[in-house]
């Protein structure tokens, strides 16, 4: 199998200009990932800056309400900047420093990855440019202001649908142009190899913690781990350490959009194999291979592709991928706020919504939902619904 493949998914589908940078990144990463100094530096930031480990919380009232298994939340919402995204940006920014690159670029949709990137760049003193679709800039003005406050620059992207996908295109174009002094921090387990691997590994801190915490709190592994899947980084992060534990059910939740008769953003459920943004994976496309305009109530899931490793886990039936619609996610958003006092990100609300399906599961089973982010960023859009 070629390097960077997961079954028939993955690869390095990029313009040749970027080839050396990806190989350089791959080499450095393979070298450094077991390096003690690097890992100590990373751990120090995780602990004292990000606020790790994130707690494993028993959702007592939600458990009662569902009347099925015990429900636990892995609290990535408590991380600095409010989501799992920082786990990855911190790691990649340290990598960039090792690569001697002083300029960082990143794409952002809802702005979360942009904020997380601008944050670590501020801390490490790296120049930072964030590409963001003009449509997204308008609907996420708070995050744009945050990015600016953190000293980074937001570059508006007006081409195509002027959203995340186009911001990604534009980031790649910047990277092609400035590849020698610039590191591109991709925000999910998408893109060409070695990104899916790197982003998964940095995110898997949450899965590793969860493994230890499960043993500590309920003396065995979880029976099921649920996470929402946009590109799939938070999900790969909690899934990865459990992939070989075959009795742990892994469930990824994709955004179904308004209803089954519209295009949502469920690339595995509704897509087909293709190449997008550097990887062969499941994507939402028409018969001619044109990428479709997706939709979801949650900006962070509104992406026509998915990480290749998820496509693979689905293909080999190791994980299952379900669809949750906008209205179900919104119900879960309010329900978990009212029952547990935790306002989740709309992305996360998709994962939570799936709990409604689980009332038949035995009461002594343990189900963990990855609480990938908090809802602060979504309040204005929910308010204006």
């Amino acid at each position: 199998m070629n390097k960077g493949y997961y079954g028939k998914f993955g690869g390095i589908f990029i313009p040749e200009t970027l080839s050396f940078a990806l190989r350089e990144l791959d080499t450095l990463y393979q070298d450094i990932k077991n390096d003690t100094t690097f890992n100590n530096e990373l751990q120090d930031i995780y602990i004292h800056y990000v606020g790790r480990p994130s707690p494993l919380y028993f959702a007592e009232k939600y458990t009662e309400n569902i009347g099925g298994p015990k429900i636990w939340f892995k609290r990535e919402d408590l991380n600095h900047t409010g989501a799992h995204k920082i786990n990855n940006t911190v790691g990649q920014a340290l990598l960039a420093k090792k690569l001697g690159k002083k300029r960082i670029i990143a794409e952002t949709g809802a702005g979360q990855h942009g904020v997380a990137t601008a944050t670590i760049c501020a801390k490490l003193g790296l120049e930072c440019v964030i590409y963001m679709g003009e449509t997204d800039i308008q609907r996420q003005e708070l995050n744009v202001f945050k990015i600016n406050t953190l000293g980074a620059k937001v570059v508006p992207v007006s081409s195509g649908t002027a959203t995340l996908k186009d911001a990604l295109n534009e980031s790649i174009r910047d990277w092609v142009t400035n590849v020698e002094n610039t590191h591109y921090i991709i925000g999910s387990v998408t893109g060409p190899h070695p990104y899916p691997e790197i982003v998964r590994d940095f995110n898997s801190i949450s899965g590793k913690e969860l493994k230890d915490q499960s043993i500590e709190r309920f003396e065995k592994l979880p029976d099921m781990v649920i996470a929402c899947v946009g590109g799939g980084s938070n999900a790969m992060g909690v899934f990865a350490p459990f992939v070989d534990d075959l009795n742990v059910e892994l469930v990824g939740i994709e955004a179904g959009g308004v209803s089954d008769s519209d295009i949502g953003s469920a690339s595995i459920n509704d897509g087909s194999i293709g190449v997008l943004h550097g990887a062969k994976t499941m994507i939402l496309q028409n018969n001619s291979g044109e990428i479709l305009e997706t939709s979801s109530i949650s900006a962070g899931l509104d992406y026509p592709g998915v990480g290749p490793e998820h496509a693979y886990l689905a293909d080999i039936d190791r994980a299952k991928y379900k669809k949750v619609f906008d209205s179900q996610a919104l119900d879960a958003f309010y329900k978990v706020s009212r029952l547990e006092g935790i306002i989740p990100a709309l992305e996360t609300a998709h994962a939570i919504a799936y709990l409604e399906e689980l009332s038949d599961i035995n009461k002594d089973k343990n189900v963990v939902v990855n609480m990938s982010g908090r809802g602060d960023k979504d309040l204005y859009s929910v308010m204006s619904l």
Partner: protein
Amino acid sequence: MISERFKELRKHNLTGFVPYLVANYPNKDIFDEALAALSNMGADLIEIGIPFTDPIAEGKTIESAHHASLKNGFNLTNFLNQIKNFKNRFDTHIVAMGYANSFLNPSIEEVSQKSREAGFDGFLIVDMPYEETDTFKLIKGRDLEFIQLVAPTSTQENIERGLSNNPSLIYYITQRGVTGANNLDLTEVQNNLKDLQKITNVPIITGFGIKSSEHIKAFKDYTDGIVIGSALIECLANSNPIKSMKDFLAPILEELKNE
């Protein structure tokens, strides 16, 4: 065959003319007319961009052309019929240039087969890396040639692994950046082309940001063909597109022929 054509040019110390068009841009009729005109102007190879929603290696000009063509309802099956008609009238070499996803639907085999039947001579898939050897084999199995990209950032190792797939032509990218970029370092390009010729005998065409007779003058002795892309697409956006294109190309062609 494309490779033969360029070997021939090299033998006679000539530099090929390789214009780039986006399929059906600015519309079907003008595109057809431009294709015929370029053939009549003696194009040695015409690259035809297959429009894609997310053409990540393109600058604004070509990206907009892709989107415009899609908006006009571009459809590959219909387009292949158009190509058939063109090839009935002209024997100019043509390659389909585009992004992997456009070539994989429904499968690389089927797209190769139909493209060959329509008269395409080869493929240039911008984001298809040399590792995808099976894909290149499948393409060649359908009697199509393919073009290998080499960038200023390509390592010797990369280039050699790419060459092991036996491309018919090398496309040397003049600069870091997207199509139409404006950062040409003439001497760097010349040196890199010289180095490249030391590694391989495969003919080399050169493109990205070439738009003036000065550029042609600087490069023609170092390459087997010159690609004119964004600058030409810009002409086609004008009110009298074919005339505009011809006017623009006149001094360029003159410089190309000027030994």
